[in-house]
């Protein structure tokens, strides 16, 4: 299952904003309408993934585990460059067989950073970025409206519009928009930030009142159980 995605990231004055659509496709069928593409890596680092869904999931999971272990062993908060290096090493070792295109964003003691890691293991540090099948549409918006040191609301709006462009112009992207804002103070994961106008009103729970189906006859047969064997075993507790 591929995500056929639009993901984007933008560095602003106080941190980083990441955005993603929520559609996961299996050829022409939408397999998941509310798929989560912004993955947790560390309290201050999040990662958007495009490409093969299983690969992005597992890769980001592994990265998160490794960083947590490192954090506990060294007593230091993880830095974005370390996450990027680990990812680059791993993806390069597999020579593109792991189909994961990732956007890593986060805030650490050295500042606000945004990196991209390609499936072959190439790394680039950028102030704004879009990836996935809808990247060209989103990049058009970002190239036009990106400015350095934007305010939070401007940055969120920019990412929303960029993902929206991807959703509108790419068949494989769609449904809702998730936004994740990472600053020095903390993380604001807004899911969904914007819901699709084309939602259906199906209810997921189907419970019917007793009496909806008419009862014609009723027969009650009590189930009699008798004790055949009883054994008690004491548990040894120190």
């Amino acid at each position, binding site marked *: 299952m591929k995500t056929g995605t639009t993901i984007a990231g933008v560095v602003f004055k106080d941190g980083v904003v990441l955005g993603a659509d929520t559609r996961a496709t299996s050829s022409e069928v939408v397999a998941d309408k509310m798929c989560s593409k912004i993955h947790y890596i560390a309290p201050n680092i999040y990662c958007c993934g495009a490409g093969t869904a299983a690969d992005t999931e597992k890769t980001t999971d592994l990265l998160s585990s490794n960083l947590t272990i490192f954090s506990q062993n060294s007593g230091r908060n993880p830095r974005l460059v370390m996450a990027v290096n680990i990812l680059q090493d791993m993806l390069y070792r597999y020579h*593109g067989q792991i*189909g994961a295109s990732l956007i890593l964003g986060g805030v650490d003691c050295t500042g606000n950073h945004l990196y991209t890691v*390609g499936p*072959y293991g*190439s790394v*680039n540090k950028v102030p704004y970025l879009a990836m996935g099948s809808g990247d060209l549409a989103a990049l058009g918006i970002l190239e036009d409206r990106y400015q350095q040191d934007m305010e939070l609301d401007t940055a969120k709006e920019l990412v929303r519009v960029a993902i929206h462009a991807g959703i509108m112009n790419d068949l494989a992207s769609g449904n809702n928009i998730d936004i994740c804002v990472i600053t020095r103070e903390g993380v604001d994961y807004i899911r969904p930030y914007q819901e699709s106008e084309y939602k259906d009103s199906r209810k997921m729970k189907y419970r019917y009142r007793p009496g909806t189906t008419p009862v014609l006859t009723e027969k009650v047969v009590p189930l009699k159980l008798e004790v055949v064997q009883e054994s008690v075993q004491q548990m040894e507790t120190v």
Partner: protein
Amino acid sequence: MEKHCTNSQVKGVSTGTTILAATFNGGVVICSDSRASIGGEYVSSKTINKVIQVHDRIFCCMAGSLADAQAVIKAAKYNLSFHSVQMESPPLVIAAASVLKELCYHNKDELQAGFITAGWDKKKGPQVYVVSLGGMLVPQLVTIGGSGSTYIYGYVDAKYKPNMSREECLQFATNALALAMGRDNVSGGVAHLVVVTETGVEHVVVPGNKLPKFHDE
């Protein structure tokens, strides 16, 4: 990724580059363009850094597959740093070039990356070495590499003179890059020039619109 049609031989992101290094009186100039492309059609980055510092006075330019080049340079940086600690002195430029050459030669089946190593050391002063795709290591006074280099062989052969001054050499390098970027579709962006001398390192960035223009532009 499928939409970025891959007719090119390099898988994934390619540097599709113009790189150049030249010695002058007292130092070297190493420079490159800043475009990274996929499949020869899509510019994946306009501002990629292809001139990497591997030690205080030694720089490398990369050409070929971006992933391969970055991986090799990472390993080379580590090796060189370790070598420097063991020797208790800054490494020679040829040591840096050799580290790259060993990696490129012994892994030639898997790698698609070439390098130009240039810098200054106490023993031989300013030097330029080229490490080709298969792992050949050759010292030169001036060298060019990457897909864009084919368009400037004539210019470099005609205009380069050994022992130029720093300003002349910078002008020569800027002109050469501008000519190559003007003709090669997978080279472009800004021109990164690094000047290495005994006293220090200077990084000059020339944005695309400030590059020298020629008769037909």
